[in-house]
């Protein structure tokens, strides 16, 4: 019966709003008289809604940052040639400026954005639809964004001036068919899209110091987004008569010029500000999508916008967990138009973007999440989309170059022995994905490796190692490597441990790479335990419970059995678990040993009512009881990297990410003592640079470990811990003073050349560096390049000890060739910078990283270096795929001497018998392979080869005579410079 209606093309056109006006009127007449047609319309409307939603939910890609930058650059070129245009645009901007500066009570900070505007302000238009019910309609993608946002914001303590996070998100606001709305009769609903345009410039919260390196973000191409003059906009589409409160219809079918956009939105801002009232906003429960982690704000008091300077939302956050919502749905489907009856108060017009929000927006940009979404929703449609909780990474803004003037000559940071970022990066690369930039913390990549530093002498907890060489990615610069090697504790000598495993057994841990891996990892660790050690197991899911009371390490079977019996299910209550784990640890406190809670989780704490900051406070408190907290992240898809790192940091422990059995073995077996024994805590490094040698310096990595210079000597300031055998490496890229001066001169000259009213100067202005405050010692400039200072406390001490070590400029430049450790550190740093697409990467490429890694001859007993070399190659493949280039096979370019040195395998072999070129063996043996004994004869087309020890160093085999007999005759530290016998030509 009704089926035939669906053959009518007009029906489709009507539902899609494509009927011409006259036909539309006719069709609507038919509708009046034909209820079945109306039913067909409803059905089709529903169906098309579903189609639209589903199609829009398809994964969306983004351009790469480079591609975007190129476009923006091309646009700027276009601008330059069109500077005469758009007087009206300027007028509009001017108008907005007025509005902005009129915003009441708004503190304005000097903006450092390179556009040079003096004021920074972001204003969000206020919706004042006094009587209209506003329905928020979920965008399919939004929950993802939102949950990330909420998580990210939760990571840091929220400052009072924080704006409500939801403001920075796109959302559809739908004005409900309020019967009491006098201005919109005859129309069932207004559709408004309150989307957010990112505010032009950054407004720092008052508490933020302007000297923070964050201010450099404006130079990032991704930040083009922020360099718009557009203020936050909210516009409302719909039938609003001239008498309606000034929200202007905005069509989304085309992208308007920003000038139009600004003036459009500015009007309502101005008009509405004065009459901001309580707005009844009800949150529409879109099944499975919207309410998830959505901040619902209930407001009651009428706002006083004009006097409120903070400009933030007030109210109660109600985080409805995903699981709960899902459960609700299955029991009772929620009608899309049901309202939760919660009210949202739009209180004040001024919204400050906090650093977190700005960083988050950048992060979202990079992760391909749509930050702004202008899409128009045609009809109410069923939401069919899963809420996705993503991974979250705190945004990092890389350290800039700093001129060592005044206190800026001091670079202070807390050490970081975490390695989670490395294994996490490996997970991405292994899955052929380029890791998100913010997941790459370069210091953690660097600290993953051993650099062969000398062990500390005597009772010192660590040795200090400093080396400086030309910077591989910028030859004019120097790269200074500062290394700390923690004292090793032989496994046999280690003190007793009192361990509490705190295992997340919530439902999300079910995956193969989570709980099962946790179990294997813990069993590995238990296998290393002795009878003096104590182990307890606490699990948490919906509730927390002690699975195994503290048990002596000798009862291995019982412990293993308990571990084996762990199973996942239920929700997550991490807080209760942590509490219980600490209690268990304290009950069995070992005075001379190490007391530690080991948390294994996929990172989703779902702490319920308590905020993250409360959790952090609790952990900080517990850390004072000398129980350490180590956190091991497992699995993926749910990893709250930033949160875990932060917690471990507060808990005086370290954070590692376990992506597989191999990594578990590294952490729990190979480096067990380092993982479990803290040899020093609150370790801080302060480097003072001598301005007479150093023009500029930049600390590579450690962005989230920076400390204020004055906190260095302040023992109450928490810093990183170092475990037995752990090592910490920091790299500084240093611009020598003459190079920096030359660069500055050139810049000045460029500027001078552009001066319009100055007579052209033919000779350069005299170059007296105004800030040359060369340190003078005994009437001469100090020969020192820098001084490294270290502060640390004994594991249970409260007073810090100081180690200082000045480094002569001579001393660093004298070293003839980089040590293997230096090359390796440079390799890892270049790799990290390329992964981050760092603006400071200079000439660093993946090939350079491969080259440097290849040059390094550090031993590789566990295969970690080999794996790193493979990761570089995988990254090259991903990179080639991303950029559409064809990939040249990587051929390491070792000099003959270096190849020979490498083939000698750290002096293992010394008498070379023959080399056999065998390029093709690269595929089978990789760039380097110590093959071992081989009986010779024919190989690779060459006959009568001598038996011996064969080492493959691309592109040749090196055949060595056996070691022992040669060891006595020729013991040279530097490999013999005898040229390898001319390679026999083989085909």
């Amino acid at each position, binding site marked *: 019966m009704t089926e035939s209606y669906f053959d009518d093309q007009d029906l*489709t*056109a009507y539902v899609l709003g*494509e009927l011409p006006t006259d036909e539309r009127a006719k069709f609507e007449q038919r509708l009046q008289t034909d209820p079945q047609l109306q039913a067909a319309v409803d059905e089709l409307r529903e*169906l*098309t809604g579903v*189609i*639209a939603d589903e*199609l829009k939910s*398809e994964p*969306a*890609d*983004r*351009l*790469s940052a480079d591609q*975007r930058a*190129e*476009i*923006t650059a*091309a*646009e*700027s*070129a*276009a*601008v330059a*040639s*069109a*500077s*005469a*245009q*758009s007087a009206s*645009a*300027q007028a509009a*901007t001017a108008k907005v400026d007025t509005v902005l500066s009129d915003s009441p009570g708004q503190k304005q900070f000097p903006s450092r954005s390179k*556009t*040079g505007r*003096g004021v920074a302000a972001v204003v969000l238009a206020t919706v004042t639809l006094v009587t209209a019910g506003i329905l928020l309609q979920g965008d399919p993608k939004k929950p993802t964004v939102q949950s990330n946002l909420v998580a990210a914001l939760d990571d840091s303590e929220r400052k009072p001036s924080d704006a409500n996070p939801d403001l920075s998100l796109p959302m559809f606001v739908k004005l409900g068919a309020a019967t009491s709305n006098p201005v919109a009769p005859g129309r069932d609903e207004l559709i408004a899209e309150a989307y957010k345009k990112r505010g032009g410039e950054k407004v720092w919260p008052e508490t933020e110091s302007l000297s923070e390196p964050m201010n450099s973000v404006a130079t990032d191409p991704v930040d*083009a987004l922020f*360099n*718009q003059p557009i203020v936050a906009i909210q516009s409302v589409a719909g039938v609003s008569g001239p008498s309606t409160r000034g929200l202007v219809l905005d069509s989304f079918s*085309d*992208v308007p*010029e*920003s000038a139009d956009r600004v003036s459009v939105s500015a009007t309502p801002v101005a008009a509405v500000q004065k009459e901001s009232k309580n707005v009844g906003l009800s949150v529409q429960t879109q099944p499975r999508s919207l309410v998830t982690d959505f901040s619902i704000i209930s407001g009651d008091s009428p706002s006083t916008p004009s006097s409120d300077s903070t400009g933030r939302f007030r109210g109660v956050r109600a985080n409805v967990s995903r699981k709960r919502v899902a459960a609700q749905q299955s029991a009772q489907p929620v009608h899309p138009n049901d309202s939760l009856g919660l009210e949202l108060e739009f209180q004040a017009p001024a919204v400050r973007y906090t650093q977190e929000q700005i960083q988050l927006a950048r992060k979202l940009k990079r992760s*391909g999440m749509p*930050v*702004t979404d*202008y*899409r*128009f929703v045609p009809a109410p449609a069923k939401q069919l*989309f*899963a809420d*996705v*909780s993503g*991974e979250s990474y705190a945004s990092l803004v890389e350290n800039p170059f700093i001129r060592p003037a005044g206190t800026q000559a001091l670079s202070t940071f807390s050490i970081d022995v975490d390695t989670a970022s490395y294994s996490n990066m490996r997970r991405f690369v292994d*899955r*052929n994905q380029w890791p998100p930039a913010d997941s790459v913390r370069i210091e953690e990549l660097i600290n993953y490796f051993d650099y062969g530093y000398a062990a500390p002498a005597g009772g010192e907890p660590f040795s200090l190692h400093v080396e400086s060489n030309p910077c591989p990615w910028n030859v004019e610069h120097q790269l200074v490597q500062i290394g700390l090697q923690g004292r090793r504790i032989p496994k046999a000598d280690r003190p007793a441990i009192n361990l509490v495993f705190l295992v997340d057994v919530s439902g999300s841990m079910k995956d193969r790479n989570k709980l099962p891996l946790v179990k294997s990892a813990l069993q590995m660790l238990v296998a290393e335990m002795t009878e003096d050690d104590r182990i307890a197991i606490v699990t948490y899911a919906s509730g927390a419970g002690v699975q195994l009371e503290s048990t002596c390490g000798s009862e291995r079977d019982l412990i293993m059995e308990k571990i084996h019996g762990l199973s996942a299910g239920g929700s997550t209550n991490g807080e209760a678990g942590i509490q219980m784990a600490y209690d268990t640890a304290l009950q069995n406190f070992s005075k001379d040993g190490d007391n530690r809670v080991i948390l294994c989780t996929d990172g989703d704490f779902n702490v319920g009512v308590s905020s993250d900051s409360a959790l952090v406070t609790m952990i900080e408190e517990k850390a004072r009881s000398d129980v350490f907290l180590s956190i091991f992240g497992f699995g*993926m*898809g*749910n990893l709250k990297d930033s949160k875990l790192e932060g917690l471990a940091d507060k808990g005086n422990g370290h954070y590692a990410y376990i992506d597989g059995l191999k990594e578990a073995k590294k952490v729990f077996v190979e480096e067990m003592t380092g993982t479990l024994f803290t040899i020093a805590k609150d370790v801080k490094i302060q480097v003072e640079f001598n301005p007479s040698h150093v023009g500029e310096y930049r600390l590579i990595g450690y962005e989230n470990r920076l400390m204020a210079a004055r906190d260095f000597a302040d023992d109450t300031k928490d810093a990183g811990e170092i475990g037995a055998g752990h090592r910490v490496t920091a790299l500084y890229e240093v611009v020598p003073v003459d190079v920096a001066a030359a660069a500055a001169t050139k810049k000045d000259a460029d500027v001078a050349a552009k001066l319009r009213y100055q007579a052209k100067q033919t000779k350069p202005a005299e170059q007296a560096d105004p800030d040359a405050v060369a340190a003078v010692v005994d009437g001469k400039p100090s020969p020192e390049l820098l001084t490294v200072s270290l502060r640390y406390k004994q594991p249970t001490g409260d007073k810090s000890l100081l180690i200082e070590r000045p480094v002569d400029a001579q001393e660093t430049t004298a070293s003839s060739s980089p040590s293997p450790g230096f090359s390796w550190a440079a390799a890892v740093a270049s790799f990290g910078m390329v992964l981050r697409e760092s603006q400071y990467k200079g000439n660093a490429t993946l090939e350079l990283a491969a080259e440097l890694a290849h040059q390094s001859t550090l031993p590789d007993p566990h295969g970690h270096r080999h794996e790193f070399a493979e990761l570089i190659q995988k990254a090259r493949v991903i990179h080639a795929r991303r*950029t559409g280039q064809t990939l040249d096979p990587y051929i390491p370019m070792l000099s003959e001497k270096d190849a020979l040195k490498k083939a000698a395998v750290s002096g293992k072999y010394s008498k070379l018998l023959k080399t056999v070129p065998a390029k093709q063996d690269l595929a089978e043996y990789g760039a380097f392979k110590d093959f071992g004994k081989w009986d010779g004869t024919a190989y690779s087309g060459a006959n009568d080869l001598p038996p011996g020890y064969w080492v493959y160093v691309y592109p040749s085999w090196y055949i060595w005579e056996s070691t022992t007999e040669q060891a006595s005759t020729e013991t040279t530290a530097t490999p013999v410079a005898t040229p390898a016998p001319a390679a026999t030509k083989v085909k």
Partner: protein
Amino acid sequence: MAGCPESSKQDQQVSGWISVALDRFESDLLRYAGRILGDADRARDVVQDTFLQLCREKQNESGGGSGASGQNTLNGKLAPWLYTVCRNRSLDVKRKEKRMTTAVDEQLMEQSGDQDAPDRKAELVETTSKMLQLVGELPENQREVIRLKFQSGLTYRQIAEVTGLSATNVGFLIHTGIKSLRKQMKDH
């Protein structure tokens, strides 16, 4: 005055404009081009080209004519313009490389678009894939217009402009596509 030189304001103005356009269309165009090319990387190149072309177009306009009017020429036609250029470029690339959409490419594309989360994948399979799958099974021409309509929100007329079909024809294709989608959904 207050340290706000006109030129810098101007810069911001327009780079703001391109950012707005990028934010608005980037993802949609990437999806559209990705469908034609079956390759996320090539789609990115094509979309980048499209935007670069847009910049050039603007430059030509403003260089030639009086500024203010030039600014508005593209306005109002931006969406169809972008899609048309993007479509033509995509087809060019596809023709040139004689690349057929292969299973591997599709996989790669999904991989790069889908930020991991196995549970998300499961959910997608569970709830949304039916419709997407059905859309995927439509004839090529219906599939394209339905995507342009629902994914990109173009009107019949704009779609006609992009694809070179008549608006009536577009209406018919969409109607037919929806009809068969409806039928198949009913059957399940």
